[in-house]
């Protein structure tokens, strides 16, 4: 049982199809279907005043990707109810990572989910932030000894704000938003650039546990 | 009684024969019988031709001792139908002959003389 398995994804193996004129066309899905560029670091605007203005806008308009992991996602819905009403703080939910700025990892992450989380995170555009909820994302929480649940999120993606608790209540999440806003306004929330700079480290960590890595290195 | 002339008898008999022939040709299933029926039809036809040209008291247009050589047109019946009937008989015989040939060949191909057995070509 100790031998390392190799994982073959039938959709990503090279294949040969017959073209319209009868010629053979070899398709290498990873090469042909996916962009293989690596992320670049995007420098902030040199003019401080612009950057500050933009950071203020980013802070006041936080679009959250609707991605729920673990039990914490149930705590996100009350945010939108009249009682907590996160809209007041400029927080809105977006269904697509392309338009979202903030990714909330709402609880424990199994390896399988981590893969999806990484993919979604990489599909978000540059000023992007991560908020992690619950002990599980901090140190594994009650799943610290699970064979399938990660212990520390910050090994896999740059986390801007941790909200502790098991689970944190919506008030705590709102506080987390405030903290995040402060960070953004201060220009410290450069997670995306951090990710680009330490890309190899992050990738190595990710690949260590995601054995069947069946996607390009960076999901554009 | 004045209708019962030789001409009329000939005509009626001729037409009767024709009808009998036709009836036979249309109802009989055996090819040979059909051919016979057609011969009867022909005979009736020829009788009609002859009867039509008959004029009472005249004889067939054959010149011999009894007729002499003068005033032939008054002694003889109309000669043309007589000539026609000869041709007609010849043709009739010819057709009968050809029909019989066909009958023979038909029998050779299928060993049957029932006309219902020869319906390969239809519709």
């Amino acid at each position: 049982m100790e031998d390392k398995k190799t994982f073959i994804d039938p959709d990503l193996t090279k294949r040969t199809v017959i073209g319209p004129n009868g010629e053979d066309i070899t398709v290498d899905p990873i090469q042909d279907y996916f962009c293989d560029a690596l992320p670049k670091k995007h420098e902030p605007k040199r003019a401080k005043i612009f950057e500050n203005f933009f950071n203020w806008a980013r802070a006041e308009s936080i679009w959250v990707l609707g991605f729920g992991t673990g039990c914490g996602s149930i705590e996100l819905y009350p945010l939108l109810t009249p009682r907590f009403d996160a809209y007041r703080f400029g927080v809105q939910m977006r269904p697509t990572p392309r338009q979202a700025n903030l990714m909330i990892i709402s609880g424990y992450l199994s390896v399988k989910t981590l893969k999806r989380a990484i993919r979604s995170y990489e599909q978000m555009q540059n000023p992007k932030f991560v908020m992690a909820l619950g002990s599980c994302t901090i140190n594994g929480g009650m799943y610290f000894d699970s064979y399938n649940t990660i212990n520390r999120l910050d090994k896999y993606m740059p986390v801007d704000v941790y909200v502790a608790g098991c689970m944190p209540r919506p008030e705590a999440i709102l506080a987390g938003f405030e903290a995040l806003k402060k960070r953004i306004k201060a220009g410290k929330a450069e997670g995306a650039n951090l990710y680009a700079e330490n890309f190899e480290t992050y990738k190595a960590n990710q690949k260590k546990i995601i054995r069947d890595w069946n996607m390009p290195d960076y999901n554009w | 009684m004045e209708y019962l002339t030789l001409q009329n008898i000939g005509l009626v008999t001729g037409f009767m024969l024709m009808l009998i022939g036709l009836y036979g040709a249309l109802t009989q299933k055996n090819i040979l019988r059909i051919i016979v029926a057609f011969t009867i039809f022909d005979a009736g036809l020829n009788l009609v031709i002859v009867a039509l040209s008959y004029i009472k008291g005249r004889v067939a247009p054959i010149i011999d001792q009894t007729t002499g050589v003068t005033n032939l047109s008054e002694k003889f019946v109309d000669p043309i139908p007589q000539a026609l009937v000869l041709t007609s008989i010849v043709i009739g015989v010819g057709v009968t002959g050809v029909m019989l040939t066909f009958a023979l060949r038909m029998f050779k191909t299928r060993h049957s003389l029932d006309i219902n057995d020869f319906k390969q070509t239809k519709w």
Partner: protein
Amino acid sequence: MSIDWIKLLFTLLGLFIVLNYGLLQYGLIRRITARIGKRIGMPVYQPYIDLVKNYAMRSQITHGVMFYLGPVFRLVGGVGIFMFMPLIYGSYYWSNYSFAGDVILIMYFMFFGMLGMALGASEGGHPYSFIGISRGLSQFTTVEVPFTLAVIAVAVQHHSFSLTEIVAGQQGGIMHWNIMTNPFAGIAAMLAFLGMMMASPFNVVQAPQEIPIGPPTEYHGTYLGLLQTNRAILYVSESILMVNLFFGGATNWVELIVKSFCVFFWPVFVGLVFPRFRIDQSIPWFLKIPLILSIIGIFMV
């Protein structure tokens, strides 16, 4: 052809006003919506922030040239509708470029943006874009039928397709408005307007819970900024169109804004009350009541 530069300036000014108005209106409506849901809601100026943020995104991706052009088409469509529509009745400078064409031009120019957007989104290659577009186009075909009939009714009534003349014919008090003189056509057009605005119950096109947000799934950053800009301009322009067609137009900016705001509120209220239709429910719906109303309207003229 000599270009009237002053008029161009006025038009651009009008565009600027309408853009701001549109953004504020959107914020206000979100806030009112929130109030109806017993929430406080986002600040009124939130759309501005969103817009700035989107334009300030640092990285972007592109799927190809058409993907690129989609928002451009869309915004041209929106701005075009504005450009070809007279704003203030009786004012030369606020009549924009309405000399270039009449209401038919405006109606058909709406398609321009739609088509461009559809193509751009399709180049993204996302299945949801296709599904959203196919729904949007399907619904749009039937929305336009009662609307067009209503427009024709109005045009026949005033014997003109020119918006200026239609507005001129409605001057002189509320009883001269087309919504009063030809209520059937007016109501039909207002019902169709619901579909044009793609608000609930006719928002199956974007249906965030079902097919993320439909066509613009792949759009982000500047592209999304353009689309937001367009939304601000387009929705206001469409309201102004309705105002011009049925509510007597406007003789000054205040009147224009008040009227168009009221018109715009109609789909918002309806949307708050009614749940979403499926696409195969909304298509027949438009071919029933609104269509019958508009046919009555056209024969009343």
